């Protein structure tokens, strides 16, 4: 089981950062390389820019602790858990943490590699929103 984590300090209020990520259907707007997705209840299917379809199950969307958790349910994965936490550090100051735990290990690395660009994009959108 491999567990990886990337994080980003964002000059925006935690509520603004949370607003970027909280809706499951918004993922193509902030995750580079996810071209589209469909959402039905707790089921989400993403399609990557490389044409790969990955079914997912949304586990948690918690506006109180600003946590979004999901798992990839593709049979390629024996296990996957993705967690995005937005932590308020102060007014206009947040930490966004994107964790990936998965088995087989190389697949964790592939997803976690993509989350780096996602954090870039979340930061860009949130900071632009904060600036008005």
């Amino acid at each position, binding site marked *: 089981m*491999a567990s990886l984590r*990337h994080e980003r300090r964002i000059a925006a209020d935690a509520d603004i950062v949370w607003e970027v990520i909280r809706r499951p259907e918004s993922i193509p707007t902030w*995750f*580079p*390389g*996810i071209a589209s997705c469909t959402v039905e209840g707790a089921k989400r299917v993403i399609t*990557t*820019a*490389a*044409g*790969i379809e990955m079914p997912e199950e949304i586990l948690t969307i918690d506006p109180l602790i600003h946590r979004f958790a999901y798992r990839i349910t593709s049979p*390629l994965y024996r296990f996957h858990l993705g967690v995005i936490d937005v932590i308020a550090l102060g007014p206009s100051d947040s930490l966004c943490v994107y964790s990936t735990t998965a088995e*087989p*290990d*190389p*697949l964790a*690395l*592939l*997803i976690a*590699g*993509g989350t*780096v*660009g996602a954090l870039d994009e979340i930061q860009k959108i949130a900071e632009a929103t904060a600036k008005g």
Partner: protein
Amino acid sequence: MGRKILFITTDQQRYDTLGVNGGVLSRTPVLDGLAAQGIRYERCQPTSVVCMPSRASMLTGQFPSTHGAWMNGVPLAIDAPSVAEDLHDAGYATALIGKAHFEPFMDPFGLFAENALASLGLPTVEQDWFDGRRGVHRGFDHLEFATHGVMGALHYAKWMTELHPEAIGGFYPVVDGELNVNAAGGGDTGAPQVKFNNVPRDWYHTDWVADRTIEWLDRQDGDRDWFCWMSFPDPHHPWDPPRSEIGRVPWRDVELPANYPQRASERESLLDAKARHWRAWYDGRLVSNYEAPAKWVPATLTPDQVREVNALNAVEVELIDEAVGRVLASIEAKGWGDDVDVIFTSDHGEFQGDFGLLFKGPYHVDGLMRLPLIWRPARSTRPEPSVVHAPVSLVSLAATFLEVAGRPAPAWVEGASLPRSDDDARARSFDSTVTEWDSAIFGVDVHVRSVVTREHLYTEYRPGTMHDGSEGELYDLVDDPLQRINRFDDPAYANARATLAERLRSHEERPGERATPGTLMAPV
């Protein structure tokens, strides 16, 4: 019109696989002939013993700790400096045909241009350049990619899928269903990454790379200079050359390498004399890096498996030599022969049974670190054939290409152009080279620095998962060319160790700007 440059690389090829370097398994008359006409380097070191950092050093003329692609899976920044950009500015037509690997192959989100070009059907794309301009991808007008087998979304895989789908199943699957480097055995001996491949030779990637290079050369204007990086994916594993060719080197006739002790106790005692991760990997207690099969235990390697791997490796080397011969003949037929500099090397080596090991990793010994390097300057310059014994590094390639093109080396280039003789090497202080290793994957980090001189190979292990910073290796290359006796703690070598440690400190403290280390995006 100036001098054209044919830069030929292979992948994971040891120094001693060429006839001119003492190799006995492969016949390499073409490369041996280039060496006879030009400069052969007796001790060329990579900046890293894995593909991506090493190839990035060829392109940038920088060490991994400078260019930032510090391990496999970390992409070279798109706006990193590139010698191809400088040559492009100088009016050169620029091409890279074969294996690039500046960006990860595993790319489910389609983030990297190298993996998109074949699908896009474009020869190149525009990107940011180091100097703030935009231009062709890393300075190349034309890119056509291949890698090991038919993996990924690259041009060779697309070509095979579209034209010869029936042959794809003949290749060994480099990774398994979990995307780990495949441990499955094949051939006659069950050796990992070995398979009898019924692909016709004409369809194999070695010939494809040569064919595509010739096709690109055919389209060049004779009055324009060009820089062509022809990059063969072989003899890197998998060892699955066309079955029609494997009779060239019958594995049962292959002698075991001088550095393969047949008795397990001897292998184990040699490994125990090295830093602790050597034995841990051999025993299957540690997987420190992605580049060897995670589910394969080196202690299970048999003498016959070593023979078979080395035989197939030799076949792949012969096919490369013949492919190079075809490309050189094409250049001669165009009347360019006198004006082309040919440089041949590899990105890193391969254990091939040394110390009972295969593949590669954070193990800095000659099997992985001593490379073939041949520079046949354009015949119009009337080159003086020579053999350079001084240590040189692949970090010098970028400056060498620029020198050939009559361009000054820019400030970002860390390596001086290659010496043409030992006198030249002495005059320009080519007396040591450094190889770096940094990896951090799946909870294991390893950090290694080595310096090589004519007399010594010295390695320090920085603190990491397996090392506390106190371990090292020191080999006397004169008395112990197989690097079996670790003199790191030998009082008789205390002065040598201090001098070599100082060289590593100088390397760490060298002036110049460092790129921010890149982020690990994929296993490879």
